[in-house]
């Protein structure tokens, strides 16, 4: 009880201290900046033209890159997971090597690579790098989903007279995809966040519109205000998508295997799926009692 009160006082006090610090006007670079709550800091946001620019250039630029890259990344992930779990060694091993390479490299370096070597322009550099990186991770998640399926599913497909590839595509893959859907959506949150790297390679998205174009136009006086608006817009996009991922994972985990997957962390989710696969294998070897 006492610790609860102390913690509450500390948190509320800390927030109040931050608010008071922000509220005071500040001298910076020879000009006096208004306090955070000063109306002159926010009056430009009453201008609908400003919002149409922020929304149609910034938010639209971010969503366009994210949507196109998401579609490509899911397609690439499906292809990669099938190649990676192929029975033929000379398909599986090179895919694994390429995947390791892609996963170990920063996305930003990939963007620079595509921008300078393939000379595609900033938009396609962003889309291609995000597709490659997130496609690799989605592929790994799907592969883990395939590995976590009980062997019987494959055997059932084969016993119905399907070929191995048919059984994989028609019986196993739909189940793996459904099981891994929350993780794929969570990976799309990562993708959406990473579109902001376009700022560094020169693609016009939300961060660049708000923090470069608008600040250059209206002046540094509004730097912090634009930052807050940018933050809120990013949070609105990312939080809604990650809450959707969590809702999906709650739904799938209650209906199917009962394993709780944490959709926020794809690496961990892959590990969970692999662990459940090995657990299931060991269960099946135990005699029934």
């Amino acid at each position, binding site marked *: 009880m006492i610790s609860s009160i102390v913690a509450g006082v500390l948190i509320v006090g800390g927030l109040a201290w931050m608010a008071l610090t922000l509220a005071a006007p500040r001298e910076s670079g020879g000009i006096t900046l208004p306090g955070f709550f000063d109306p002159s800091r926010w009056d430009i946001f009453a201008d609908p033209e400003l919002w149409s620019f922020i929304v149609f250039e910034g938010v639209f630029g971010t969503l366009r890159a994210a949507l196109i890259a998401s579609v490509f990344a899911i397609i690439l992930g499906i292809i990669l997971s099938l190649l990676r779990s192929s029975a033929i060694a000379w398909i599986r091993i090179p895919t694994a090597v390429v995947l390791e390479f892609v996963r170990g490299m920063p996305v930003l370096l990939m963007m620079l690579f595509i921008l300078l070597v393939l000379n595609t322009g900033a938009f396609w550099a962003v889309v291609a790098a995000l597709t490659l990186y997130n496609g690799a991770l989605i592929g790994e998640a799907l592969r883990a989903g395939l590995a976590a399926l009980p062997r019987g599913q494959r055997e059932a497909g084969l016993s119905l007279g399907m070929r191995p590839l048919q059984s994989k595509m028609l019986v196993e893959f739909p189940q793996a995809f459904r099981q891994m859907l929350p993780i794929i959506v969570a990976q799309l949150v990562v993708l959406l*966040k990473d579109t902001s790297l376009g*700022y560094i390679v020169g693609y016009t998205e939300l961060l660049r519109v708000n923090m470069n174009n608008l600040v250059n136009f209206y002046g540094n006086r509004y730097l*912090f205000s634009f930052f807050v608006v940018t933050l809120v817009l990013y949070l609105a996009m990312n939080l809604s998508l990650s809450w959707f991922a969590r809702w999906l994972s709650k739904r799938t985990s209650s209906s199917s295997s009962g394993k709780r997957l*944490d959709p*926020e962390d794809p690496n961990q989710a892959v590990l969970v799926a692999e662990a459940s696969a090995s657990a299931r294998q060991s269960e099946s070897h135990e005699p029934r009692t």
Partner: protein
Amino acid sequence: MDAVIDNLPTYFEGFRMTLLLLVVSGISALVLGTIVAAMRISPVPSLRAFATVYTELVRNTPLTLVLFFCAIVLPYLGPDLAYAASAMVGLSVYTSPFVAEALRSGINGVPVGQAEAARSVGLGFGQTVSLIVLPQAFRMTIPPLINVFIALTKNTSVAGGFFVFELFGATSRLANANGDAVIAILLGAATLYLVITIPLGVIAAQLERKWVVQR
């Protein structure tokens, strides 16, 4: 290839900065993340709520925006840090919720019965956590934590976009200076990143295999 060999000193200067960013922000993210994780599982509701909100907000903010805040907005608000220091602050803050989540998932992996047993023997909250739960959670936590540090290694490249001369910054400068050998320059940088990330990944996978089976 010549372009890479001629510019090895520049590469290593950048690589040193990348390692410095990785170590410093890794350690401070570990400290921050542990505090957040402890708040997250504490019996005090206000601490739990604060930690949850912090985790949700920071995790859904793009790293580029965090580093932009630290490098460009923060000097306007007061503290005037060197770019490398502000990048370290940004990377630590950005990484801390991921550390906290890794720790928390390890702690959640410990059966509730363990904590109940500890409490029934008369141990307090602090004792239960430090003597019973954390030692068991530790082995579940290391592999996901290593994955967080792999992600951090790759994330340090974003600091290169905010005036820090680390591996990515060095690479983009070299690539601009040597227009005829861009591929070699970029592959050289990729190799240096892989030198950090692939061994870490191998260690994580091995620990995972060793420890998951035992449990």
